């Protein structure tokens, strides 16, 4: 509960006062933080690879060739083949689709839902606030991995369920941050003014509060993606994640795990892919946070 108590007036003044445009912030990022820019470039490359996967490889991600299983890397199979004779490089490319989707989609859902709930809680206040925040507290109380496991257990396997589980796990922390920002903004002069001249609540929330929460939402978005990508690998480890013959990096690491000591490329290739993308999102998120929202450092 301490976030909103730390000098809210200063907070709101800064957000509104230094109305630096999004474009300017990005320019500043480009100027000040080369690593973040490079990270953005890496992410862009991965997205390209995911989108154009079919053009980059002659194989399909589920094409099995039992007679040629566990082949070492060669000119035919750049990263060798897996335990069912599937081309690992191909699966890495197609895996980018699911892994990026698992990173982005649930995070997007949780940010949008969390922000909506957070704004309502902060703006309406009173009982609505109390009920929403207690529910958020309950969600936050669970160790996230355990909660995701239980939700997957309940919903069953499947990618849609993974989206849902991860979104359910993450919305509450977003709601908390956005709520505290809303509380600060609520006290700002122009929201007071808008209220006085009788602007509808919904309009104030949409027009005035939401846009001002955007920077922190964007930062949270970039920073939550890596944890979702990693969560997929943990869920696959537990056997409740994406199912074969689908390709996802976490699943690939996990099925390659038993061959780690004899055919290390099977699990190392997707591991390194996960590591690079996770680091890239982290660096980009850090950079964005530095230029956009100095108060999110917590």
């Amino acid at each position: 509960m301490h976030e909103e108590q730390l000098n809210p007036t200063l907070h709101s003044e800064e957000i509104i006062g230094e109305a630096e445009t999004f474009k300017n912030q990005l320019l500043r990022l480009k100027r000040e933080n080369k690593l973040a820019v490079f990270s953005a470039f890496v992410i862009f490359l991965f997205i390209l690879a995911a989108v154009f996967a079919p053009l980059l490889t002659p194989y399909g991600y589920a094409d099995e060739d039992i007679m040629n299983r566990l082949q070492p890397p060669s000119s035919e199979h750049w990263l060798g083949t897996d335990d069912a004779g599937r081309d690992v490089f191909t699966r890495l490319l197609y895996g980018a689709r699911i892994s990026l989707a698992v990173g982005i989609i649930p995070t997007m859902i949780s940010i949008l839902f969390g922000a909506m709930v957070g704004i309502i809680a902060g703006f309406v206040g009173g009982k609505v606030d109390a009920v929403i925040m207690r529910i958020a507290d309950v969600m936050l109380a669970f160790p996230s991995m355990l909660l995701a496991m239980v939700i997957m257990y309940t919903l069953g396997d499947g990618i849609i369920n993974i989206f849902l589980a991860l979104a359910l796990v993450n919305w509450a922390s977003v709601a908390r941050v956005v709520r505290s920002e809303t509380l600060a903004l609520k006290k700002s002069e122009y929201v007071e003014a808008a209220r006085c001249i009788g602007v509808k609540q919904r309009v104030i929330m949409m027009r005035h509060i939401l846009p001002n929460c955007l920077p922190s939402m964007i930062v949270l978005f970039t920073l939550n993606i890596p944890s979702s990508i990693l969560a997929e690998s943990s869920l696959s480890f537990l056997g409740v994640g994406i199912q074969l013959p689908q390709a996802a990096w976490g699943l690939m690491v996990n099925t390659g795990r038993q061959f780690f000591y004899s055919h290390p490329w099977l699990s190392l290739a997707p591991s390194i892919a996960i590591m690079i993308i996770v680091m890239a999102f982290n660096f980009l998120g850090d950079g964005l946070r530095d230029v956009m929202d100095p108060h999110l450092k917590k």
Partner: protein
Amino acid sequence: MKKFAVLLLVLAMVFSFAACGGEKDTQVDVEPGLLRVAMLSDMATMDVAQTTDDYFVPMNVFDRLFEVKVVGDGVTDIVPSLVDTYSAADDSVTYNFTLKEGLKFSNGSALTASDVQFTFERLLTAGGVNDDIPLEVLGAAELQAGTADTLAGFVVADDLNFSITLAAPNAGFIAELTSPAISIVDKETFSEGFGMKIEETIGSGPYKVTEWVVNDHYTLEYNENYWGTAPTATKVVVNIVPDPSTQNLMYQNGELDMIDLGELDTSIVESTYKTKYADKIITSRRVGLTYFAMNANDEYLSDINVRKAIQMAVDRDAIVAGIFNNQATVEHGIIPAGVWGYNEDITKIPYDLEAAKQLLTDAGYAEGEVTIEIAMDSTSSSGTQLVIQVIQQNLIAAGINAQIKTYDESSWLALRNSGEMDCFVATWTMDYNDPANIMYTFYGSEAKTKIRSLNYADTEVMARVAAASSIIDDDARRAEYQALEEIIVIEDAAWLPLYENTHLFAIGDRVADFTPHWAGYTNFYAIDMIMK
């Protein structure tokens, strides 16, 4: 850019760690006679009445009336264990037994005929899962239903002598008595905590359980009161290590004296064990077989032409070579190799993709019209999952629209037991060395066929299967089983046998020799592990 290069450098350092580091010999001091093994999960109970999987403690801590002895490569013999002598009446209905003299449980109390009687009665009344064999005894149904207090067919003459009368003749009864299910328990000390508390789980076998830390490890130690020769492994520690990769590394590091290579992928066995530990590998046949079951009530599978096409479309040789590196043999019947009654000369199903396609076309099916769902249990081994995927590809190649659907274990079982499953792949490992074990379980009655062979319909065959166990003449009984096998597999095309696995183990430097369980179970008799 430079900074990123630095990061990559750090990464490279971490990974290259793996490449360096000299191999040192660090055989830690281990007390002599200590056998260290690992299992993937802990046992739920030590009580055979409550489990059909956790046989390690029952096999080592308890004795049976008879045991199966491995006398040569793939050759087994049934030998008396607690029993000294026995005789069977000509009708195979009544059997007379005499126990060895001076038998004792690990707590010192005598093992007598009334303990055997108690064992049979308890299996029937405990509401457990292992009552198939005692149910054959005369009066078993009455005892189970509560209309009788004792098992009428079980007569105790004195401490050493007793007789068992069956409800129907069964020439394979002695073979059945070797099953771990018939582990003899002590009537006097039997109590509530049997199977769960180590001090209340008393047997007469070579070992007693001295420690059980749930989910961590359990320890067996030599039972001084054991009637037979003392084992060379005087103490056995079973560690629970849920990750096979970790077990693999532990074995290579000298932390395990034996590893079950069945847990590892064949390619790892091939690349690591067959090269570095070739002289440490112990091979055993896993007596049983993996099969593909087809539902006789299914819209398409009820057509024998479809079933025949499927039989011909699956390339079993490729499965055995590709997935199992030939650590398996193709099976052609129902009774697996290594079982009494196995028929080498059964008509073999050919692999013929064109003939399969032709058969479907002739039967009037368009390409892709036949649609079936192969149900996969998500907990089945990675080998089985690969096999299912290959079968799917084979069937698609034959123009059958085969889909794999994954179910969690409980949903899979529920669906199978409902008789609604289209088809599935599963493995049956023999409990005792008699064809009745598999023939009766799969084709003995309508209740059995509904679950096991997915609604196999021929009631005449079922009646013959049920009657076969009472044929007294061995040759006649074998001929009958083999005739039935031919009808089910070839004429009715109701069953697609796939392969029988070979089970490999690797022993450590401290072990001199090891004889696995005759049917290649993961569980083994620690007394058959000869320590250096």
